[in-house]
């Protein structure tokens, strides 16, 4: 038995030596390639940006998507940067990311960095069951492992051994369907539908003969038909954690709540859906204002026609919309930006 113990101990030593050596080799020759391969190159961007910028704007595609007829193709963050006098702003941006990714990146802001303020995009849709259970979560969660503050070889091993939320698409779809069926929504008592599944099903039947309107209307219901549960919603946990980390790092924090197409939500679905959107907005504003965060409310700032995608629910704005949002951010968060 003693000999067995010695052999297990020797194996442990071998494992530690292998980890140590492989970490040196991996960090030197493979790590950067893997960051790019896992779509986690934002970590490299952050490394360079935080040395030269006072402000960092964290965003997804809403920042830089432009309209076909736009004469000015500047992103929201560039438009904000244009208004700054003595401060510089850098942008970290990647399509379809959300607060969990921002959080992991913010954790990587060093104490000696130049950054004093961070503006974090808050997308209302990222709180819904559709986005939370999107198939894009798997690559996002994999990339998030690469942002963790661990030795490079440990991150590599965590990815290789699937130590992240690596669910198959079928299971994500099932979870989403479960939420649509069981998550309660706060609607007037006389409203006939108490969950998204019933609501969506009824409208689908009603508009069956008008496929284009039907699909768009149903998309609005599935996208915005939710009431944020602050106890269980994972995005709330992420934003709460961002607040905590920002405080620890002495960073000024601004949440930029994006504009949604409230006009179309009203005309396509009706006042109940608009009410849900506004309830969620109010909840987020109250929750984070109370925590000392400046929350920029852009929710109703952009008109229906100023959205690039007229036939789906996105936060992509034409030039006038982006300019208005940038102006609103600058005005609301002036205390940190001027």
């Amino acid at each position, binding site marked *: 038995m003693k000999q067995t113990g010695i052999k297990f101990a020797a194996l442990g030593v071998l494992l530690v030596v292998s980890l140590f050596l492989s970490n040196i080799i991996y960090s030197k020759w493979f790590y950067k390639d893997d960051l790019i391969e896992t779509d986690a190159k934002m970590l490299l961007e952050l490394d360079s940006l935080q040395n030269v910028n006072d402000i960092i704007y964290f965003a997804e595609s809403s920042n830089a998507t432009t309209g076909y007829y736009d004469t000015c193709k500047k992103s929201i963050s560039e438009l904000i940067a244009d208004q700054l006098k003595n401060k510089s702003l850098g942008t970290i941006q990647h399509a379809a990311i959300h607060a969990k990714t921002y959080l992991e990146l913010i954790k990587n802001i060093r104490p000696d960095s130049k950054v004093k303020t961070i503006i974090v995009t808050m997308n209302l849709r990222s709180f819904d069951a559709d986005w939370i259970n999107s198939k894009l979560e798997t690559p996002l969660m994999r990339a998030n492992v690469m942002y963790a503050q661990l030795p490079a070889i440990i991150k590599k091993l965590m990815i*290789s051994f*699937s130590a992240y939320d690596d669910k198959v698409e079928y299971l994500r779809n099932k979870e989403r369907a479960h939420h649509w069926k069981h998550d309660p929504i706060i609607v007037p008592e006389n409203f006939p539908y108490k969950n998204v599944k019933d609501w969506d099903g009824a409208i689908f039947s009603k508009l069956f003969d008008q496929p284009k309107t039907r699909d768009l209307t149903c998309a609005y219901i599935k996208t915005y038909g939710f009431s944020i549960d602050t106890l269980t919603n994972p995005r709330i946990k992420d934003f709460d954690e961002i607040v905590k980390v920002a405080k620890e790092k002495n960073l000024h924090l601004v949440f930029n709540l994006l504009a949604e197409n409230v006009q179309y939500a009203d005309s396509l679905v009706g006042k109940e859906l608009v009410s849900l959107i506004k309830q969620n907005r109010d909840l987020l504003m109250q929750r984070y204002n109370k925590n000392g965060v400046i929350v920029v409310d852009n929710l109703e700032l952009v008109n229906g026609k100023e959205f690039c995608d007229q036939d789906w629910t996105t936060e992509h704005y034409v030039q006038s919309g982006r300019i208005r949002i940038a102006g609103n951010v600058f005005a609301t968060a002036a205390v940190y930006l001027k």
Partner: protein
Amino acid sequence: MLFNTLNFLLFLPVVIGMYYLIPNRSRWILLFVASCYFYMVFYPPYVLILFAVILIDYFCGLKMENAKGFRRKLFLILSVVGNIGILGYFKYSNFLATSWIDFSVFAHFKTSMHVSDILLPIGLSFHTFQSLSYTIEVYRGKQKAERHIGYFANYVLFFPQMVAGPIERYNRLGVQLRENHPYAYENIAAGFKMVLYGLFVKMCIADNMAPIVNAVYEHPEKFSQLSVITALIAFSLQIYADFYGYSTIALGAAKMMGINLMDNFKQPYFATSIRDFWKRWHISLSSWFRDYVFIPMGGSRVNLFRFIINILFLFALSGFWHGANYTFIIWGALHGLAYLLEYGVMKISFIEKMAQNRMVKFIHGVKTFLIVTFIWIFFRAENMTNAKQIIHAIIYSSKEKITPLLIQWWVLIPFLIFIAVEILIRKNRIDNWLGGKKVFLRWSFYFVMLMCIMLFSGIKSYPFIYFRF
């Protein structure tokens, strides 16, 4: 649960530790709970399918043992219908529905058939076939019916091999599950070697081949002929490394508990004929089909015409067992055809004599590898159109702008290590081969394997290919 996950790396030592801490009479409970958990990590409700298989075959086995004549046959039929029914519903119903819908379009009639949203339970073909082998053996009177449902359940559920084999017979695995296996360091050491090597083969070889193969199979028209041929060879390596890696880990995990599973591979790419290949590749499935399909059909003791039909049917059926798609049937049928062609050619006496020559053997080895590699196209392709695209891309050069096939230089390092180890251990198994070596060599091997897994494992983890069968 997948073997190449952190979950499994934590799960295995815990189960092994508990296995040796508790008395033998209680181990079946531990193995049952562990196996259920192992399976439920994938999708919990599907464990009920396994329970259904267990209950059907357990009761059929019991009833069959004492029954005679038609009644005995009736319970066999019940077991076959139960197992094949479950397999048919979950694995083949959508294939049949799609085929019927396609036919209705072709024949211009309306059908109310629809494709349902079913998630295929992992390894369903494996555990149904394994369980079925038990009832057939009981029916034949070669196996006594198991009275303890717990032991029988563990035979169907035994986690190291439940989702991708080897497909064990009750007289091997069932008996071992009952036996007392006291703690032995040798078993742990042998199992560790196999698990380590299996992980290396899966993670450093198969998972590094996958991106090369996937890129070409997704858009064959974008690649040069050389790239497409490279991807075909890469898939030959991927499928072998993937399944061989899995089997080695399965054998290793079982060995740690003192249980010996059958070898499922004997270096199939060293085979000198298609017949030889099938004696070395997925041996447990080949022997299942031989014992329960081919021999009952008359085997080779039939006239030539019947023999040809039997072989083609057997291989096509084996293909269909793998997947509910025409591509798998064609894959199997092509193997059958190649088998028959070789069989015919080898009947010519001077060729048979020549085949004993070492150089000729080598040429036959290369020929077999190339045939198998070509036929893998149908195994890997998403559908027949994709298979046709690949074959087209091999014959004709692309008219589109050629995309270079990206292969990282460092992939060669684990690949060369793998080839070297396989040549060294030829006709042996990694644990046996390594067990006879000096301490320095053994520990150097562990070190190299650990370093390779850490440095060269793929950054995207791919599920084992055979899990979906």
